[in-house]
């Protein structure tokens, strides 16, 4: 096991940030902690990177205990904290060189590992980090976290606040790193990124709701979901919620995701009901379940 977390709990004053969390990562796995702000993701990262003590439970990273062997862990992991923003007043090259130096290595020594990522920002290596775009900063931060060839990589919300193009590129980079045998624990509030991980843990209020592959998690969703659409969204929501057989009603982009309490639900019936409520251009279609639907069902 590359990372093993057993019954970890952590409270800050009155607030329970992490509540009896357990999970394991195999070597070379890309594992996602998926949950909103305040779910406890950052606290878990800090416990695993030896920055915080857990109140209860045990954890090991790369075979080392997070409390007893914290020095070994600090030599063997790469960490990109959530609000990490590098040294704005140092250039790209100086930043990378600094992190290489403090980890007792050089850029040349591990260039192979970061090459893919670094070549994209190398043309700007004399530019100050503060003057880089969000996407480039993120690439530099990843290069810095990788420069000492860590066995395990911790990425706390690396794609928050980054535009879609950079997000996509970032995940492609993670896939390539995974192929090089690095275990990666990544957290994100974006449900749509869940499907890019090997396995995920859905987390809210410090508790893990479910752990599995994204495909299995979706498969276990107990209901059929229907996309419902009509001209006036607000009225549609009101009508659906007052439909006696509704189980859940959630706006979902241009549609409403509707589930029914009954097993033998017939969409025709709903269509007629909505027509009596004077809705125009009603459309009802069965749709694919997403991680977000599952999350909402579990978090209910």
């Amino acid at each position: 096991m590359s990372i093993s977390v057993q019954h970890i709990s952590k409270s800050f004053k009155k607030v329970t940030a992490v509540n009896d969390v357990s999970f394991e990562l195999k070597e070379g796995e890309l594992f996602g902690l998926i949950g909103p702000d305040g779910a406890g993701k950052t606290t878990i990262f800090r416990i695993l990177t030896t920055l915080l003590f857990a109140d209860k439970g045990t954890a090991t990273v790369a075979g080392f205990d997070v409390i007893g062997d914290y020095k070994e862990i600090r030599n063997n992991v790469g960490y990109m904290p959530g609000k990490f923003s590098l040294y704005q007043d140092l250039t790209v090259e100086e930043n990378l060189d600094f992190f290489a130096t403090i980890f007792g290595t050089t850029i040349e020594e591990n260039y192979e590992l970061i090459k893919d990522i670094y070549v994209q920002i190398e043309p700007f290596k004399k530019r100050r980090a503060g003057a880089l775009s969000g996407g480039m900063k993120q690439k530099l931060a990843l290069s810095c976290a990788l420069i000492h060839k860590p066995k395990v990589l911790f990425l706390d919300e690396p794609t928050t606040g980054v535009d879609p193009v950079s997000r996509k590129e970032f995940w492609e980079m993670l896939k390539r790193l995974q192929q090089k045998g690095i275990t990666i624990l990544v957290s994100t509030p974006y449900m749509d990124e869940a499907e890019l991980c090997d396995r995920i843990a859905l987390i809210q209020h410090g508790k893990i709701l479910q752990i599995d592959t994204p495909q299995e998690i979706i498969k276990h969703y107990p209901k059929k979901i229907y996309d419902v659409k009509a001209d006036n969204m607000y009225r549609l929501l009101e009508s659906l919620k007052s439909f006696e057989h509704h189980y859940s009603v959630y706006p979902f982009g241009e549609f409403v995701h509707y589930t029914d309490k009954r097993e033998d639900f017939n969409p025709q019936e709903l269509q007629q009901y909505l027509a009596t409520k004077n809705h125009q251009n009603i459309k009802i279609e069965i749709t694919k379940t997403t991680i977000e639907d599952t999350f909402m069902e579990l978090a209910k």
Partner: protein
Amino acid sequence: MKRFIGFVKKEFYHIFRDKRSLFILFGMPIAQILLFGFAITNEINNVDIAIFDKSNDATTQEIIQKISASKYFSIKQNITNEAEIETVFQKGKVLAVLVFEKDFKKNLTKDNAAKVHVITDATDPNTANSITNYISAIIGSYQKEINKNSTLEYQIETKSRMVYNPELKSVFMFVPGVMTIILMLVSAMMTSISITREKELGTMEILLVSPLKPFQVIVGKVIPYIFLSIINAIVIVLLSIFIFKMPVQGSLFLLALESVLFIITSLSLGILISTVSATQQTAMMISLMGLMLPTILLSGFIFPISSMPLPLQIISNIIPAKWFILILKGIMLKGVGLCFIWKETLILAGMTLFFIALSIKKYKIRLE
């Protein structure tokens, strides 16, 4: 070691690329010294004084003549009894009263010594001090004049007494004071800000999760500031010697050693501040309110300690700057050696050890 040097290098980049810190580092000392140097001037002009001549003989007349002939003083009044001294001061008519003893000339010729008393209104201590100096100088030159024509050594003893403010600050006091403040500011505030900046940026988390040892991070942060503070101290001393002609009486080497000690004291205070504050803003507030204000107000730099109420006098003892100012005063103004200031040095060293021990205890290798 390579890691450590890399770290120190990075710190220097930060300092030299931040115009604000560069200004605080180098603009402030120069600006402060010049400001204090020119604002507190010891020039006096046409000061009103009164004469109480108990002797009224040829010699005293000659001296009075000389004083009134100078452009510095104008004699406003002649006083005939002791009680009047108090009244003229209270009415604010004059800033000084010159009292010649009885039988001034007779004493001078018979015993080769005579006494003149300069009583000054020291509500404005700097002016009072200047007045005393000028009068002493005039009397001194008169003394030389009469000695030239005589084989005997005539001594006129000028005694001064300052009313209302018994301990007088020298005009040169501003140099030790400013130096103390600058070193405190640069060392304590700048280090605490630079450490908390890493916390704010989130880079402190990375540094903690790196093989760098915590003390390497701290020492690495501190080294550039030791270096810069020393440069600052040198600049201040040079400015005061060459621009303000301040005599440095004691050993420059001892001065340097004591300054390094005080720099380390301030740095350890800076580290201590950074362990208790999470943001640059808090660090700055604590440095300004918790260090600068007491340093300016309670160290004896501006307000003499002996005229403070007792509780403040007691509190002033825990202010490192107080001891450093005493040391600087000793070395720069009085020219004393270590045997006279060992007590102050020891106190300062003790404080430093205490702050370092406390910061090590408070510095966390984790985030809590």
